[in-house]
């Protein structure tokens, strides 16, 4: 019988959505042109050649290595691309994804990447053409809402701040803006350099849709522990208690 990864416990929408993010079985909601994704990433001009840090692997005469025989290089590694990044900031007000789940998605589904997880941002580094593909996949999928999530290379401040009155996540550098037509536009790249032209990222999710697709537990959404005086633990908490207890006991080794 083929093994089916379980990924995550729980029968709530948060548990289900977390499993979807980890499995990579995500719904595609939009199709941002590749050139626009590249422009927002800000590492190379759309259409420009990729910078490389070494010749293509086929030209390098690689050593006889069993690992190299088993693992096919990614397109970016094969071409010798430099390593670049994309970094996301996801609002705590029901953004679809959250930092650890972007990392789990990357670590499970994306070859040759290096995810890093903080509270206010989540970065994935990879060879340039690989990270471009991974970034587009995130932009287009239900992992991302264009009002509650944005790409921020620096000055990422915003995930925990109240939303703007138009529902946009606060961004000190105002890299995205709400258009009069109800679409969200990217106007600066990841590090805040103005784009040559605005990028139409489409309409944001409604509050109800964001709550349906979110992976965050909250008392005003799907609760993890109930509320004061009315505790009810999600299955995830039970699993975590078990893991914490074993981890604590494992450290007690008087031998």
């Amino acid at each position, binding site marked *: 019988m083929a093994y089916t990864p379980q990924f995550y416990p729980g029968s709530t929408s948060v548990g289900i959505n977390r499993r979807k993010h980890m499995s990579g079985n995500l719904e595609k909601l939009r199709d941002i042109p590749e050139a626009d994704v590249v422009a927002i990433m800000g590492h190379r001009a759309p259409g420009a050649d990729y910078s490389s840090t070494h010749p293509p692997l086929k030209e390098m005469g690689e050593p006889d290595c069993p690992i190299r025989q088993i693992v096919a290089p990614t397109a970016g590694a094969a071409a010798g691309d430099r390593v670049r990044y994309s970094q996301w900031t996801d609002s*705590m*007000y029901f953004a679809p*994804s*959250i*930092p*650890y*789940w972007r990392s789990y998605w990357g670590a499970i589904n994306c070859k040759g990447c290096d995810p*890093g*997880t*903080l*509270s*206010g941002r989540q970065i994935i580094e990879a060879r340039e053409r690989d990270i471009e593909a991974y970034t587009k996949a995130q932009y287009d999928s239900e992992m991302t809402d264009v009002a509650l999530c944005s790409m921020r290379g*620096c*000055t990422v*401040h915003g*995930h*925990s*701040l*109240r*939303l*703007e*009155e138009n*529902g946009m996540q*606060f961004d*000190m*550098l105002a890299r995205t803006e709400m258009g009069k037509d109800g679409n969200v536009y990217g106007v600066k790249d990841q590090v*805040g*350099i103005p784009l040559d032209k605005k990028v139409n990222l489409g309409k944001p999710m409604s509050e109800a849709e964001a709550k349906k697709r979110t*992976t*965050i*537990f*909250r*008392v*005003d959404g799907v609760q*993890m*522990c*109930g*509320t*004061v*005086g009315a*505790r009810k*633990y999600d299955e*995830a*908490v039970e699993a*975590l*208690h078990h*893991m*914490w*207890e074993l*981890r*604590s*006991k*494992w*450290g*007690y*080794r*008087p031998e």
Partner: protein
Amino acid sequence: MAVKHTKKLFVKALEKKFATEVKTIGSKDAKLEGQTTSYLRLGPEQNARKREFMEAAAKLSGKRGMTGYNPYVHAGGIPLGQRQLVPYKLSGTEYVVEGDDLHFVNNPAMQQMWDDVRRTIVVGLDMAHEVLQKRLGKEVTPETINNYLEILNHAMPGAAVVQEHMVETHPALVDDCNVRVFTGDDALADEIDDQYLINIDKMFPAEQAEALKAAIGKTSWQAIHVPTIVVRSCDGGTTSRWSAMQLCMTFIDAYNMCAGEAAVADLAYAAKHAAVLQMSEMLPARRARGPNNPGGLSFGFLADMVQTSRVAAADPVKVSLNVVAAGAMLYDQIWLGSYMSGGVGFTQYATAAYTNDVLDDFCYYGADFAADKFGGFAKAPALLDTAKELATEVNAYGMEQYEAFPTLLEDHFGGSQRASVLAAASAITAAIATGHSQVGLAGWYLSMLLHKEGWGRLGFFGYDLQDQCGPTNVFSYQSDEGNPLELRGANYPNYAMNVGHQGEYAGISSAAHAGRMDAFAINPLIKVTFANPGLVFDWADVRACFGKGGAREFRAAGDRSLVMPAV
């Protein structure tokens, strides 16, 4: 289910912090629970302290002949203040100061707190007295001790006692220097001149005094505080050398010794090594710091330095949180933030633990919950199950408050801040409830994991190691990590990297003993030494003292203006 405390102590602070926003936006509907707001992007001019900085920089630019502070170079021309720059209320006090006032460079009370640690050394008197009596056959009596202490309080600030034509320090520059003695021997204490005695009976509640005197026994000790200006010019490693030299010279004078006789070497050895208690251990070469520097300061020692336990023993939360404040400032802002790293970011993170009554609220909730459940403090069984129940409850309460009050979430805008506050509240609760610091520590790590599970985020990259792997070191017997929490310190293997931990660990150490109403956490000598009324910093009310510093009401020692031209 036991639920007693839902006072939401932080609301008052939030109302003060966001009052300007409500006034500026002019919305009658503006409230702390709202999930949206208008960001007015008023820049640094909205804030009094930033305006002061800009004015000062403008005056200095001509004098300096080069550019300096200019907030408009920030982020390619977008300055601080795109959101409201809110003030900070020192928890448990009425002080409200600007965030900038809590950077130790701008806060003389914070500087003095650290100065008071590194300028302190505890030196036993008994070994020296044995040398005098047994080796030299001299008589040591209360009268000779009082005479010695009079000479010592002349010499220790930097004055000559047996030599001619010596330079000396100006008494008004070193007036914070003093030496007092303490002992568990009531008969000896009665004979010591009051001005030179730390009177344990007077400074501590009766039960604590008895416990301290029993622990100290018949031994006698000198609480030595060398001049602040000395350690600011040199460092903490100087303290034992400075004090030892003055101690030896004083013995020579007081007991009419030969300055060159071999017995002086015994006195020097006692003063520098054999009878010395440094405030902190020397660090390994890769961190390159001598003794009496913050990296070697154990959490238990810091818990004992803070004196809230002798003035508010019935309030273990208050006791613990004053230790947290001291540690957040010293370990995060000064040690990790400056000695080890540099810059300004650590202050922003550290303040979450001692401002706006947030950690207070979470801890009082936990302490009330535990007291209801287990019938008082230090009554709960010291088990993992206790840590599990209490940490899960307190962590859930705290997360709920952040979710119900978006302004609170915005106040602790970094995940590291929230992680530290939630974990500290969980751990302090578990420690107070059980009287056991290791159970508290277990609660800390469970909180971290629950927090990460709920919100899918925690702190900096380093939290992955320190906090997600941390449960394994709680009960570890491994040689380099097996200490009880009180004996761990800033240089403990997994603790030497992240802001928002070490001060809280000191608070957990304190909480266990505060819950038990112990007289001290780990060392009675430290506890009594920092009860010295001659200290400049108020170790009984750490947070208020920080507030005074921020409000520019605190006068630190070590001022050089006496010997410089007026500005």
